[in-house]
Structures are given as C-alpha cells and as structure tokens.
C-alpha cells in the first residue's frame, strides 16, 4: 500500500502541475481571443473598446500563449492517461468498491470534456489561416469550457471520496442511488470554485510574469503590457475569490464534514471554546501540542462559525486510528497554502494599485516581484491538494473505505512490482519535465513576434499537404 501511495502521489503531483496551467491559461486565452474578436472602437462594453491595432496585439498575445498552452496540454495529456489506469492497476479494490459510483463522473469527463477539449484544441492550433476568425474564437471558448468541465468531473469524483453521498450497499461494493445527488454533493461546489480559482491564479501570475520579464528586458513591449495588465487584474480578482468566499466556505465544509482533517489542518489538539487561529507554530504530535506559536485568540472559532466562542473539536477527542496518518504534513501543507496565498494577494493588490496609478510598467521592483512570484502559485495549488488528500486519511473514501484496504491485492500486484514501475515513472517524468522546460524556454526565447504556430507542426504541415493534394 505504501508503494502504491507513493506512486500515486508522485504521478498525480507531477501530472497536476500541467492542468493547473492548462485550466488557468485556457481562461486567459479565451479572454484575449474574445477581446480580439469582439473589440470595436465604440463597443458598448468599455473593456472591449479597442482600436484595430490593439486588437492585433491581443491576437498576437493569444497566439503566443497558445504555443505555450499546446506544449503544456500535450504533457498534461500524456501524464494524465496513466492516472485513469492507476485506479485499476494499483487501486483495484478501490475501483471494484467504488466504480459503480465514481465511474459515472470519470466516464463523463471522458465523454463530455476530453472529446471537446482535444478536438477543439486541434482546430484552434490549426490556426486562423485554416479556419475563419469566428470558428477560431469559438474553438478557444470550447477549449476553455472543455478544460473547466474536465476539472468539474474530477472534483465531483474527489468530492465523493471526501464526503460520500448518494450510494447504498456496504461491505464489498457500493452502488449509485441518485445521479443528481452525486453531482450536487454539498462538498462539490465550493471545492470546485476554490480549485478553479486557484488554477486561474496560476494562469494570471504566469501571464504577468512573462509580461514583466519582457518589460524588464525592454523587448516586445506591447505584448508585455497586455500580459501584465490582464495578468495582474485577473490575479487580484481570483486571489480575492480564493480567500472569500471559496476558501472560507471550503474550510467551513471541512470543519463540519471532516472534523479530523480540520483539526489537523489547524493543529488543534485540545477541544476548546473560542479556539485560536494559529499563524505560526510547529505541531508536536508526540506531546500533542503546538510549539512556538503565534496565534490570534478566538479567531478560528469565529471564522468557522461566526461565533467567537464556538466549541471546536480537537484531535484529542478523536480516536487516533481516525487521525490523518501524518498530522504535521496536513498542518504544514495547509499553512504553506494559506501563507503563500496571503503573499500573492499582497503582490496582486499592490500591482493593481500601481497599474491604476499608471506606474506599473516602469516600477522595476514590482516587475521583479511579478516575474518571480508565479512558482508560488504552483506550490500553493499543490499544497492545497496535499491538504485535502492527506487530511482525508486514513480513509480513501472518508468513513467508508480505509486506504490500506483499497490497493490492488498483493496476490496480483506484489510490492516489488510497484517499486519497479514507480522508478520507471520517476525516470520517465524526470525526462519529460526537463524536455518541457527546454521547450518553454525556447518558445519564450523566440518571443511573441514569431508568428508561426508550430504546435503540432504536424497541423501546419497538414495544411501544406492538403493544399498540395487539392492542387
């Protein structure tokens, strides 16, 4: 089981680095394309009032981001296919147990999201030379909708594991009782909003970082200004949404539906009225206390229930066999997410303030900060998922199936086999990661003025070939 857990966490962490940007960037690209397509000098909607020249710059920006998107998407797809297989290969007992319920959402992801996403990305990347401006715009919108739908079905699946609903049957297998209740699981809404907003933050900060980089270099200024502007405004909007209402509500759900996870996140050992909000502190599981804490008294109770003296359940009142197997991991992952989130809000807020005062593009210090901030959005996103997934332990399906009973039976997949394949994946992914960085550096080096959309390259060559064939 340990090997299977290591393998899954390695695969999912590496995989998720890519969808974060795919989903975030899909939104940003859809916005750039929409402005470029709908923009007019006398548009009713002030944000769409653009001159012909500005629209060209938006189009150019969309094309540049499409190149990065394409590489990112390809890696996301090839690292994503193993995820579906992992359920069967390494987690056969889980699949057997829960497939009747979560098979619905996972199959829907394939049928409703992946087909749309892959086909319309193919059309989008084939470029404006092959399709009309309208089709190109619609394709961008479909790529966005497809990638966000895909996110929804994954979150709906995960939500069921966090808070199982709409099932019947115990013991060997569970069965679906209500499709509607599965999709409207009370856990789903806020977790989805929180997660997607997190992805949008990454998209926004990546945009801003690229723009800041080019501004600091003094190259491609028009493109850079659009990227910085759209990036910082989107960053502020989504950072705010990330904290309130989505983060607040998601935490509220955790407190009520997974008290053990919540107590571990907050490092709350003693059940108390008016629990403090710990800003800094080191959980000491052996002594069951937090060391070197800075805390705000009563704040945790207030944030959770809007009542300063609400009683919150601590880990001491939860049997240890229901504790997450690493309380410190849950605690630190959560605090890293919150801490980085706070820093990101501050950066985005300051940047928007400078933008509003018209000083952002000249402010070197701010541009440096924007350029270097984007990796923290990845860390915060991953830390959020680590919190959710390790907080749910020792259950794979909260309250229903323990993780140790979920892996493939040792009779069919011995632990040694799992170690071998994990090493194989580690090696393969190391190579994929290096290749990815190399390609991104290359695209950035060529800059946004390189008009070519060589994405599948194959796509452009197909154009040439089709032309030849018809000639």
């Amino acid at each position, binding site marked *: 089981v340990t090997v299977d857990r290591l393998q899954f966490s390695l695969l999912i962490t590496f995989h998720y680095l890519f969808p974060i940007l795919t989903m975030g960037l899909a939104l940003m690209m859809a916005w750039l394309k929409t402005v470029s397509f709908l923009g007019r000098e006398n548009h009713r909607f002030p944000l769409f009032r653009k001159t012909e020249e500005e629209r060209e710059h938006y189009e150019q920006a969309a094309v540049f981001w499409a190149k990065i998107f394409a*590489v990112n998407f*390809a890696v996301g*797809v*090839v690292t994503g*296919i193993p995820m*579906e*297989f992992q359920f*069967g*290969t*390494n987690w*056969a007992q889980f*699949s*057997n147990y*829960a*497939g*009747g*319920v979560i*098979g*619905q959402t996972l*199959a*829907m992801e*394939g*049928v*409703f999201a*992946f*087909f*749309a996403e*892959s*086909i319309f990305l*193919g*059309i989008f990347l*084939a470029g404006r030379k*092959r399709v009309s401006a309208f089709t190109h715009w619609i394709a961008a919108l479909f790529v966005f909708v497809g990638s966000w739908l895909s996110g929804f079905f994954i979150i709906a699946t995960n939500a069921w594991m966090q808070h199982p609903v709409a099932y019947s049957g115990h013991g060997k*297998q569970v*069965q*679906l*009782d*209500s*499709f509607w209740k599965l999709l409207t699981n009370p856990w789903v809404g806020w977790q989805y909003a929180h997660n997607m907003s997190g992805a949008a933050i990454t998209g926004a900060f990546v945009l801003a970082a690229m723009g800041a980089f080019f501004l600091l270099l003094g190259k491609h200024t028009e493109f850079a200004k659009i990227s910085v502007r759209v990036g910082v405004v989107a960053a502020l909007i989504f950072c705010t949404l990330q904290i309130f209402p989505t983060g607040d509500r998601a935490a509220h759900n955790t407190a009520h539906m997974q008290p053990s996870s919540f107590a571990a996140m907050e490092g709350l050992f003693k059940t108390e009225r008016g629990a403090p909000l710990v800003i800094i502190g080191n959980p000491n599981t052996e002594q069951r206390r937090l060391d070197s804490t800075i805390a705000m008294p009563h704040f945790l109770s207030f944030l959770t229930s809007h009542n300063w003296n609400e009683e919150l359940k601590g880990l001491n009142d939860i049997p240890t066999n229901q504790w997450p197997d690493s309380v410190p991991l849950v605690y630190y992952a959560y605090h890293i997410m919150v801490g980085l989130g706070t820093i990101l809000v501050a950066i985005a807020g300051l940047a928007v303030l400078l933008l509003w005062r018209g000083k952002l593009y000249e402010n070197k210090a701010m541009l440096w900060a924007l350029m270097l901030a984007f990796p923290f959005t990845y860390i915060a996103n991953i830390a959020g998922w680590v919190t959710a997934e390790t907080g749910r332990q020792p259950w794979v399906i909260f309250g229903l199936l323990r993780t140790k009973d979920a892996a*493939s*039976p040792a*009779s*069919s*997949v011995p632990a040694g*086999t799992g170690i071998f*394949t994990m090493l*194989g994946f580690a090696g*393969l992914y190391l190579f994929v990661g290096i290749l990815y960085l190399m*390609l991104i550096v290359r695209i950035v080096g060529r800059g946004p003025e390189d008009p070519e959309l*060589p994405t*599948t*390259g*194959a*796509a452009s*060559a*197909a154009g*040439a*070939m*089709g032309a030849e064939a*018809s000639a």
Partner: protein
Amino acid sequence: MTTAWFCFLAVMITMYVILDGFDLGVGALHLWVGRTSKEREQATAAIGPVWSGNEVWLIAGGGVLFLAFPTAYASAFSGLYFGLIIVLWLLVGRGLALELRHQIDHPLWEAACDAVFCLASAALALVFGVALGNVVRGVPLQANGYFSLPLFNILNWYALLIGVFGLVVLSAHGANFLSWRGVGPPAERAHLAARKLAWLEAVLFVALIWPTYHVRDEMLTNLTDHPWRLIFPALAVGSLIAMFVLQRAGQWFRAFMASSLFIVGLLTTMAAGLYPNLLPAHDGHPYSLTVHNAATGHHALVTAIVWWPLGMVLAGVYFVFAYRMFFRSEEEPKMGTS
C-alpha cells in the same frame, strides 16, 4: 441492460481501434514509407491534428468499463499489470515524440523522435493485440475475482500470435490511410505496403482460426449456436475481399473504409464469441467475470444510458466537423460516426 453496456463497450473499443489504429499503423510504417525527414513529416502530418482526439476513445472506453463493470476493470487492470504499465509508457513516449518533433529544428532530434514514434506505435499495436489475445484465451481468475499474470505469462504463444496479427492489421490499416491521404513517393510506397500487408492479413486471419478454437472453443461454438452472430465474421470476410478489390481499383478511400469494416468485423466477432463473458477464466478455473457478475447496480446503468448517448452524439458531431476540416478533399469523407 448489462447486455446494452456490453455492446457500448464493444463500440468504444472498436471506435478506438479504427481511429487510433490508423495513427498506430502510420507510426509503425512511416520510417519505411518516408525515406527523408520531410517525407516522414508528411506521413505524420496526416494524423497530427487528430491523434489526440482519437486517443480519447481509449480513455472513454476505459471509462465505460469502469462505469459499467467495475469488477472487471479492477481485475483486468491489476492482473495485466505489467502489460498496462508498458502501454502507458509507450503512450507517453509516442505522444511526446509526435507532438514535440517539430519543436526543435535539428536532424538528430527529428530522427530520434521518428524512431521513438515508430517503435512505440508498433509496440502498442502488438501489446493491444496481446491484451485481446489474453482475454480470448482466458486468465487464471481466482475466487476473489482477481488474478495475476507475470510478464512472461502475459506473453504466451497465443497472445503473441494475436499481437502479431494486431500489428499486421493496424499496419495495413495505416497503409490504406496513407495511400488515401498521402501524395508523391510516400503514397506510392504506401500503396505497395497496403497490398502486401493485405495478403499477410488474409493469411493470418485464416491461420488463426484453429488456434483460437484450440484455446477457447466457445469462440466458434458461441457463433454456430446463435447463427445470426455469423454476420460478424461474414462482415470481416466480406470487407477483406472488398479491400482487395478496391486496392486493385486504386480507390484508396474506399479501401480504407473496407479496412475499417474489417476491424469492425474482427472485434464484433470476438465480442460475439465471448458474450456473456467479459473476462473469461482460463481452462479449469470456474470464476469467469461475465456481464452479470461484474456489472454495477441498476440505477447507475440506467442513468448512464441517458447521458452516454448524448455525449456520444456530441463527440460524433465534433469528430465529423474536425475531420471535414482537416481532411477536406473531393470526396468529402464522413468519419467518426459510423
């Protein structure tokens, strides 16, 4: 209801094999069909915009198996562990080689990508055949519904034969596709390859009848007991003959369609021979997984039967739209919704 889902699963797998089948076939052949880097690029260009969409059928097919028959999904994926992990690695390597070839303009890089793409495509065609061969042959299922096949037992003689047949069928399929889509010398070479591979395909098809009967006699008796099911092998034979005729006539689009129908015939014959088994047990083991004991609850199947066709119609519309756009030609071929 479970029978309907058995049919849907067969449809998904068939669609995957037809669509990604020509991608794999092109991949396996492109080193020979294209002699220069430019020609090879032309060969892969024909599948460039559509391969990822085609591959989604595999994901969606896995989704259908997971959704409707979770017990079979769990059992097959854990039992054929090594086979599947190898498939994954090959899929990763193949996808990257195809997508990233054009990112770096250097002859060595292109050569390396071409080689990986070719090897991974050919190996995938082989491994998929091996997997199907194992399903037909049966696996050593235990009372708990699981089994284990170490790597060398996955590669048993019958499965390897089917694997080779799979490689030949998909290569022929890819050659027909390139004959239809290609231009210039690569297309000429593809014509030649398609004709030769068609013979090999026919010989193996006939040669495999006896071994199949030997490993699982139900594969034939199941057909003869329900004579209407003989439609499926008849379709395979008919389309194989049609493919020969159309290749002679130089009608490559139709030959490609015949090749697709041949694959439909093969896979439906297999499904008809297996039904009601999903994952039959090997000789002497009584614990076969069937559409009855591996299916999930009724509500899930009924619900999904509402949304699933809707999703398929949408996917069909996207595919027709995209294929029309990418493969625009005098014939205005329609694909993806057969």
